[in-house]
């Protein structure tokens, strides 16, 4: 039984340490804004709202929009 520990390399135990909220807040905001901006173009641009004229964005990501579950035409 004692041979098990001798053959295995000792692994340092990792104690989970939380990131303080203060440090996290600006990044949470930045991450959320970035994600919403990206998702807007994949998901709904040229659906209900139009930032860019025509329907080139809509047509280009068409299959992804349907398969990712966004409401589409």
């Amino acid at each position, binding site marked *: 039984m004692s041979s098990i520990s001798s053959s295995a390399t000792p692994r*340092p135990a990792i104690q989970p340490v939380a*990131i303080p909220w203060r440090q996290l807040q600006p990044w*949470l905001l930045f991450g959320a804004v970035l994600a919403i901006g*990206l998702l807007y173009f994949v998901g709904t641009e040229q659906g209900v709202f139009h930032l860019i004229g025509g329907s080139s964005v809509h*047509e280009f990501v068409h299959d992804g929009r349907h398969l990712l579950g966004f409401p589409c035409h």
Partner: protein
Amino acid sequence: MLSPRSLLIRGMLVGLAAGVLAFVFAYLVGESPIDAAIAFEEAHADPAAAGEPALVSRTVQSTVGLLTATLIYGVALGGIFSMAFAAAYGRLGQLGPRATAALVALAGFVVVALVPFLKYPANPPATGSEDTIGRRTSLYFLMLVIALASLALAIYIGRSQVARFGLWNAAIIAAGAFVAVIVVAHVLLPSIEEIPEGFSPIVLWNFRLASLGTQVVVWTALGLGLGAVVERSLRREAVLTASA
């Protein structure tokens, strides 16, 4: 210690990989029901509208277009997912990075993908009316917001009950509260029933299964991927600290 900045970057890179996997799955499983739906659309189209030149060809839509969409989707979700992970890590008892990432990804899949899908499932081409896109989009995002708010409520309830009932029972109470709010919302919100007469139910089922499967691929890749990446870097850091 983990920095939010490095987590965000790693999350987006893991998301990029998740986007590639999602593309492979969606292309192999999802394209055939889409083609079948488009064939139905063309067979039932107004003859006056037929013969319009396509702005983007089907080949581009099903390859580069689909890949672009899944990559951007993966990067966006990966970024926000890593921030949810950053908030959860170290706040879920003794759970390490892999277990935390898996749990956050499971919650993300249920809240962001499954719950809105069960009320307003993904629809293939030819099954939605142009006139109701505004209403359908509003209802879909309303359902998503309700799901996120229910998650926040469940976390609040769970945390407030831990001292009294212990971690396991508090988690059951929180999950019960989440399910209760979602069931009420699903019953109260209006349904959308626009599938045209004669549309193959098999194509519809296959399409929706492919759509849900794509979400499973994305969230599984995010959860397992970020967990593995963070675990590795923390181990490396621990070894360096130990040997220093």
